[in-house]
């Protein structure tokens, strides 16, 4: 197991390095710079600024410096948000985004799997069609539409929940609901398809022939096998939800890290672009690793490490 983990860790570092390199050079190849604005700055000041942020040095030197700092987990200063480092921004934004994302994921997974299982068991019945209609709606309605709809209905017309901001549990309800519908729908559809396939397997018939109750057949024999494809999508889904979403955080005025992704690119805030990308990639790689571990737990045929030969 430890050799596997070590190998895996090295692979993760290499992946991250490739992403850093790719992003760094792509970012610098895009025209414009942090100081390239409509109002013209004095050439001398511009030059001073550039030298302050080391932007006047050759690209390779900048790249080397960035890597050196990155090893020390230092993402550098933000150019646009003066006197703040990228570490500050992420440190403040990520916990909020993570909290929102975490609850969203839990809601999406629980409701998605439940909906999918019920739909599969009532295959081609009214409940199935109903559940799948909800799922299609969930996939096709963008979350910003969902968000505004929820705000109008549950905050304005019926003032049950606050309209926006992030301070108490009741503030969390609407953004979580808005953010969860999409992933929930995806999980529900996947679970249903996968469950339907598993239910036609021979071992389900064997379980029936043993005289097991339908509840036991579904939860003990079918669900675990049906969850593998669901777990697969969960990795990337979780990474993107946990690191915040621009639109939902903007609508509900949530101080998460989602807005930095978009803002930093618009303003060419190089260190923030790099910081958010590296951070997101790191989380994604970690999630994919967790997914692989989950495979091993769910399916004994998938071995993560070579044990003694049988």
């Amino acid at each position, binding site marked *: 197991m430890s050799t596997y983990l070590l190998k895996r860790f090295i692979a993760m570092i290499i992946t991250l390095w490739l992403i850093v390199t790719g992003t760094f050079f792509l970012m610098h190849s895009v025209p414009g710079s942090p100081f390239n604005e409509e109002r013209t700055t004095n050439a001398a000041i511009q030059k001073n600024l550039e030298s302050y942020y080391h932007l006047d040095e050759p690209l390779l030197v900048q790249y080397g410096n960035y890597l050196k700092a990155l090893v020390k987990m230092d993402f550098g200063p933000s150019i646009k948000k003066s006197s703040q480092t990228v570490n500050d921004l992420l440190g403040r934004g990520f916990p909020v985004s993570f909290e929102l994302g975490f609850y969203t994921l839990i809601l999406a997974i629980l409701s998605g799997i439940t909906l999918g299982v019920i739909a599969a068991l009532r295959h081609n019945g009214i409940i199935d069609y109903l559940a799948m209609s909800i799922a299609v709606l969930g996939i096709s309605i963008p979350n910003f539409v969902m968000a505004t709809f929820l705000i109008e209905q549950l905050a304005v017309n019926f003032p049950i929940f606050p309209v926006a901001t992030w301070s108490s549990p009741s503030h969390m309800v609407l953004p979580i609901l808005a953010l969860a519908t999409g992933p929930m729908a995806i999980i529900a559809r996947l679970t249903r398809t996968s469950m339907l396939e598993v239910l036609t397997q021979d*071992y389900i018939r*064997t379980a029936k022939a*043993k005289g097991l109750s339908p509840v*036991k057949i579904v939860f003990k024999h079918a669900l675990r*096998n049906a969850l593998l494809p669901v777990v697969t999508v969960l990795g990337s889904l979780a990474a993107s939800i946990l690191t915040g979403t621009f639109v939902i955080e903007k609508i509900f005025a949530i101080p998460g890290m989602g807005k930095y992704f978009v803002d930093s690119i618009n303003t060419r805030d190089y260190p923030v672009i790099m910081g958010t990308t590296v951070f997101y990639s790191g989380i994604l790689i970690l999630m994919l690793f967790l997914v692989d571990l989950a495979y091993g737990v769910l399916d004994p045929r998938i071995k993560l490490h070579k044990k003694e030969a049988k």
Partner: protein
Amino acid sequence: MEKVLQVKDLHVSFSTYGGEVKAVRGVSFDLYKGETLAIVGESGCGKSVTSQSIMKLIPEPPGKIRSGEILFKDIDLIQLKEPELRKIRGANISMIFQDPMTALNPTITVGEQIMEGIIQHEKLTRNQAKRVALEMLTLVGIPNPEIRLKQYPHQFSGGMRQRIVIAMALVCRPDVLIADEPTTALDVTIQAQILELFRDIQKKTGVSIILITHDLGVVAQVADRIAVMYAGRIVEIGTRREIFYHPQHPYTKGLLQSVPRLDMEKGELIPIPGTPPDLFSPPVGCAFAARCPHAMEVCERVYPLKTQLSTQHHVDCWLQDERAKNLVPTLV
């Protein structure tokens, strides 16, 4: 002899987009205690549907048991509701399926899969259930049962898996064991071992076995009685001796002639010409008439009466009729 299971005039059909497929059209047979009854026939003749109907395991819909009776200990299984059926499945009647590679759940240990049947039907603690499971594994000839119990199906070979499936089916000491092509997916040496195991287990437990197969070689080895099915009906039934040495139905004769034998010259194999009838609209008369070398006019119009040739041997064929003997010169 004591009858453990009686099937009376069973009709099963499946509704499809193309219409209703009448898969089983009036099957009747008795199963005696401790015997092995083989049901043989080509693919699609309704032998699997018959066996799955006994446990009511055919998917409904599209399948439907139209009529008939399946009497087990004087209870008609067809009338039973699901919860009562569940008490019988696995406990009194159990089943072995064709492919041991897919019949076991890949994510649950073999021990758990054997034990869950006992726990379901008998009031045993996990420890007691484990002891029974160990006994079963020893009975079906699996070495190191203690270790094997904790392993997953993928850690077993095909033959070993089939032994597990058999252990699973026998764990509650059922009265009837239905084996649907239990050796088809196995290679010949393993097949011989599994058949040997069946005989052994039957001797030890006295279980009655219904063996579904299309392999006459298997039948010759283990069956006490043989039922030959064609197009959803049993056309001939009798003891192994009667069917192999005195087959009366032209279809049975055809089946036996189409089996390769070691003492045969090359090219001597005689296939049955034609294909089985369309079961969307099965023929009114004898379904085999279209392929039968001795078919008469009456065969296509009226289904033949059952003729009793001995206490065990019955055949559905017009050739048995007194009048046929003068009418058909082709009859050898």
